[in-house]
């Protein structure tokens, strides 16, 4: 469903990603786990075509991102680390705007928007300005918005940053439910406690994939956090 093959990327002389490869299947929750500066956001930008590279290939649902960017992007729903709602527009206007950016209009757009509002349980708040929502609701709304065009992959870049514990847990549970319903969820994070034992994990460190396995397998007998710290404590030789 989502294939990253031998992808490398540099900012000038600084190597941000070094021969990154992995393959993800639908109906799974996959965490991209790495400390700050590991290259998660760079990889995320490449996977959403905010950046492009000639080194390696990324394909989504069989569409190569470099060869058929429009077809590939149509299969992706994205939630960025920074909130991207227009706070001066209402919930409904935000959803309509996004639907239009996906090329949806008329009855099909309305059906998708209604479904999104139902998922959010926010029909009665559709006329409220996004500014009136709390952080957790805004995030949930961004997730619902990312699904308006019925993508096969949902990608989230550290979506719980700045949220309280309750909201974090609610959003993590909500996204796991989405994965259970058949969606591929790709969740970039540096917080180990957001990952369940059955989730897939790609550990990224210093631009390289350290391992790709089920969380329970990576953790072994101890907690995942210990395995993660051990893996990412290794430094590159000077």
């Amino acid at each position, binding site marked *: 469903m989502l294939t990253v093959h031998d992808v490398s990327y540099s900012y000038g002389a600084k190597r941000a990603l070094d021969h990154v490869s992995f393959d993800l299947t639908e109906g799974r929750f996959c965490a991209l786990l790495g400390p700050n500066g590991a290259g998660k956001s760079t990889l995320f930008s490449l996977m959403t075509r905010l950046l492009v590279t000639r080194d390696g290939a990324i394909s989504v649902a069989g569409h190569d991102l470099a060869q058929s960017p429009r077809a590939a*992007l149509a299969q992706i729903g994205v939630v960025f680390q920074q909130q991207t709602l227009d706070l001066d*527009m209402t919930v409904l206007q935000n959803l309509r705007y996004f639907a239009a950016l996906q*090329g949806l209009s008329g009855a099909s757009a309305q059906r998708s928007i209604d479904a999104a509002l139902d998922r959010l349980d926010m029909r009665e708040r559709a006329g409220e300005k996004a500014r009136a929502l709390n952080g957790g609701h805004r995030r949930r709304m961004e997730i619902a918005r990312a699904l308006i065009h019925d993508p096969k992959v949902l990608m989230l870049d550290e979506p719980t940053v700045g949220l309280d514990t309750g909201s974090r847990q609610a959003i993590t549970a909500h996204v796991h439910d989405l994965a259970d319903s058949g969606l591929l969820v790709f969740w970039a994070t540096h917080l180990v406690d957001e990952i369940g034992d059955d989730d897939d994990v790609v550990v990224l460190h210093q631009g390289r994939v350290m391992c790709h396995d089920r969380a329970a397998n990576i953790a072994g007998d101890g907690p995942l956090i210990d395995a993660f710290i051990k893996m990412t404590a290794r430094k590159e030789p000077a």
Partner: protein
Amino acid sequence: MMGWFVALRAIVVREAMRFVNQRSRFIAALVRPLVWLIVFAAGFRAALGLSIIPPYQTYITYEVYIVPGLCGMIQLFNGMQSSLSLVYDREMGSMRLLLTSPLPRWWLLFSKLLAGVVVSILQVYVFLAIAAAFGITMPLMGYVYAFPALVISGLMLGALGLLISSTIRQLENFAGVMNFVIFPMFFMSSALYPLWRMAESSPLLRDICAVNPFTHAVELIRFALYESLNGIALLWVVLAFAVFMGGSLIGYDPARGMARRGRGPSG
């Protein structure tokens, strides 16, 4: 293709809504040219007599002369305001939402550009209505002929703003744009004085003004307001639009533009 126009309409409506909701921006956009028209022009009226030059058929007052330049000024500042808002959107993340849409990136950028033009034209017509209330009127059909001229000049100045936004990485750098782009473009043009007056004091300055695309945008608007077409100005403005738009597309190309520069994301 239907999806393209759906997105275009949504981007234009959103920009118009933002503008209408920001009343202070609307008022500020009008106050600037009105101060020039009512205060500056009144002061210079006696000092700057203007002989008959095309497209005028008779002697005109200085207030009448600078109205097209002030229309251009509105569009120039609006283009820069759009540029500032693009840099802000990029920093705040909402630009990413736009750029990850499956529609072609050039179309999304053009839609954003057109949205800014629509807003600038609204401002220009409100300004012209206020000028008319002060007795500074144009031929009636001139207001109609000015519309396509304003679209073309607005696209050119908006594309310049887009190009600038693709090269600026931080909002803090925007003050430099005011000093090095907006003010030189405005003052080294025919917006405030005709080029023959410039030539009297400095032929070099006149030559610089003559190649300034803003001069040609102003002349295009001026001639259109008097029901004529300045073909050379039109050519210059279209050419400048093509260059600025081409540069913007390169600037926003993820393979070649601003996204590659700098240190990149932190995660």
